[in-house]
């Protein structure tokens, strides 16, 4: 495989609150490749969104990157560690939106209600490429056409509240792609949408990825979305990367007890009607009440004595698959 376009190594992002420290991202490593989709999946509080915000250097106080590196191969083939750049500096601003595009979950709150979508798109275009107002408007219309918005030359003058949720999310994707980034980070891009609209948006992301050879990082809580779109998967739990591997292995040969339990507990349209679901006992601990040792140990059916005291290392389990679980200690 070619070199990764973005490489996250042992990333730690912690939040320093009065009540204690939250290790929101606790030693996460993965690579993004051109033309491939990395799915990051986990339940609330697992640190998947903070990982994305760390890459873009938009972690809010009292959080900050404590250690680790985020190596980006820039379009001019130079290498830069994003953790070393000032968050508001010119370089980081050029990368954010310029080389890494971002799509959020909430298309309504991410778009301005006071400016037309054309205005917002033009701004995004001009920020990274000063081609002049007229050319920017033409490009805005082209972008709307690319993301499949009907009658783009008229829609360019509408406001976000005049559009449906699906169309708004298309506008968000158009904005994320305005500066022609090589990496697209999509944080729960379809969670607020209906299934039929979700299918449209996932198809759109896939088509654009193929056309532009984009590296996509897709963050979601939905295992179904992961199965449909990802090439590789990172499963997170309480800030830890518990399992990593190709999508087929994650679903058909899951190694970590959490991944296995999660897969068994998801409702599926393929189930028998009224079939009871397998459950994971307990609930996700509060971030201040994080268990010692392996974070999953209080809920784990295969818990051993060592799990309660020692944080497991990442073990290689073959075929590019790795898992942080004491069961696989050699």
């Amino acid at each position: 495989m070619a070199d990764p376009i973005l490489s996250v190594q042992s990333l730690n992002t912690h939040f320093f609150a009065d009540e204690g420290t939250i290790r929101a991202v606790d030693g996460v490593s993965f690579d993004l490749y051109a033309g491939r989709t990395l799915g990051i999946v986990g339940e609330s509080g697992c640190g998947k969104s903070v990982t994305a915000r760390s890459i873009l250097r938009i972690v809010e106080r009292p959080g900050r990157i404590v250690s680790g590196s985020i190596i980006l191969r820039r379009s001019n083939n130079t290498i830069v560690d994003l953790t070393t750049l000032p968050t508001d500096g010119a370089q980081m601003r050029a990368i954010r939106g310029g080389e890494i595009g971002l799509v959020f979950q909430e298309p309504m709150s991410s778009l301005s209600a006071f400016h037309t979508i054309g205005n917002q798109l033009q701004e995004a275009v001009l920020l990274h490429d000063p081609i002049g107002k007229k050319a920017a408007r033409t490009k805005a219309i082209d972008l709307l056409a690319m993301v499949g918005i009907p009658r783009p030359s008229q829609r360019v003058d509408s406001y976000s509240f005049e559009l449906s949720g699906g169309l708004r999310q298309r506008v968000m994707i158009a904005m994320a792609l305005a500066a022609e980034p090589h990496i697209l980070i999509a944080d729960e891009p379809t969670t607020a949408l209906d299934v039929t609209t979700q299918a449209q948006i996932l198809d759109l992301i896939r088509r654009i990825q193929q056309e532009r050879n984009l590296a996509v990082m897709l963050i979601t809580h939905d295992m179904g979305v992961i199965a449909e779109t990802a090439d590789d998967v990172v499963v997170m739990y309480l800030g830890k990367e518990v399992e990593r591997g190709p999508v087929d292995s994650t679903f058909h040969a899951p190694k970590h007890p959490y991944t296995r339990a999660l897969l068994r507990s998801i409702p599926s349209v393929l189930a028998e009607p009224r079939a009871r679901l397998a459950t994971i006992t307990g609930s996700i601990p509060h971030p201040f009440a994080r268990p010692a040792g392996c974070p999953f140990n209080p809920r784990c059916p295969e818990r051993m004595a060592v799990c309660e005291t020692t944080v497991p290392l990442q073990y290689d389990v073959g075929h590019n698959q790795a898992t942080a679980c004491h069961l696989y200690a050699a």
Partner: protein
Amino acid sequence: MTRILDVRALRKHFPIRRGLLSRIAGHVRAVDDVSFTIESGETLSLVGESGCGKTTTSRCILRAIKPTSGEIRFRTESGTEIDLAPLEARQLRPLRRQMQMIFQDPFSSLNPRMTIAEIIGEPLLVNGVIDSTARTRRVEELLELVQLPSAYLNRYPHAFSGGQRQRIGIARALALNPSLVVADEPVSALDVSVQAQIVNLMLDLQDRLGIAFLFVAHDLSVVKHVSHRVAVMYAGRIVEIAPTRALFETPRHPYTEALLSAVPVPDPRRRSQRIVLEGDVADPSDLPQGCHFHPRCRYATEACKTETPPLTEITPGHSVRCIRATELTLTGVPAQ
């Protein structure tokens, strides 16, 4: 089995007012000719995309809002059937405890200033259980029913996780032994691992107590796990209603087929051949002529643009609102 609920030709139209004098400029036909029944101990799910009228239907049934027309025939504890649709607030009050509701968001539906004992005990108090020891005993019973330790009685909602809060909401709904519970997206705000616990709890409670559920949801996977029968709504109308297995395995309406094909399947070896629906859901204030679904339907003919199809039973218990229902061969999702 006894019929608990019999909804006939239910309509709810909201007026659109415009201009200085607030003249009525049109109507949003949120619910337009909806009919279905629910038996005791049965779960019927209402599914559809946002804006299809499923929540408005459930709010009409609970009489949180007054329907424009139609009948909501509810079988009371005493065994008589009463049409709830025309009743006034005063007449509804004695019936309310027989129909309860479970809400979507367990964070905003519990009062943060009340303890768990007060939250679950309030419906008892309001309905005349004045004796506080009797009330506490019942609250403890309810906590046990939803599998929460009774030691939690005097804690406040903030001390609980989303799943535990949803259990508290369920305990409150069950406090007065309702015969019908309307659950509007009760698990969609929960994490997957917790969602499974709540789904199982609802199945168990139904087996034990024989409650009838009207389950309103957009997630077809969850719906498959809880329902005896499923009704699919589109633009204010039921387009298909059938027993769960029949609906998923042999759908007869093109919209149901498209909806099923859009559900992501948690198996990368089965990346589905999706039917991507073009365009958006029909606007309920400006509905298309003929079949409401025809502008997005891949099987639409000229006749679909003008003929309004009635809901027709094509096999026992399986009704479809499509003029081509018997000639089309549609694809479903078989159980594995």
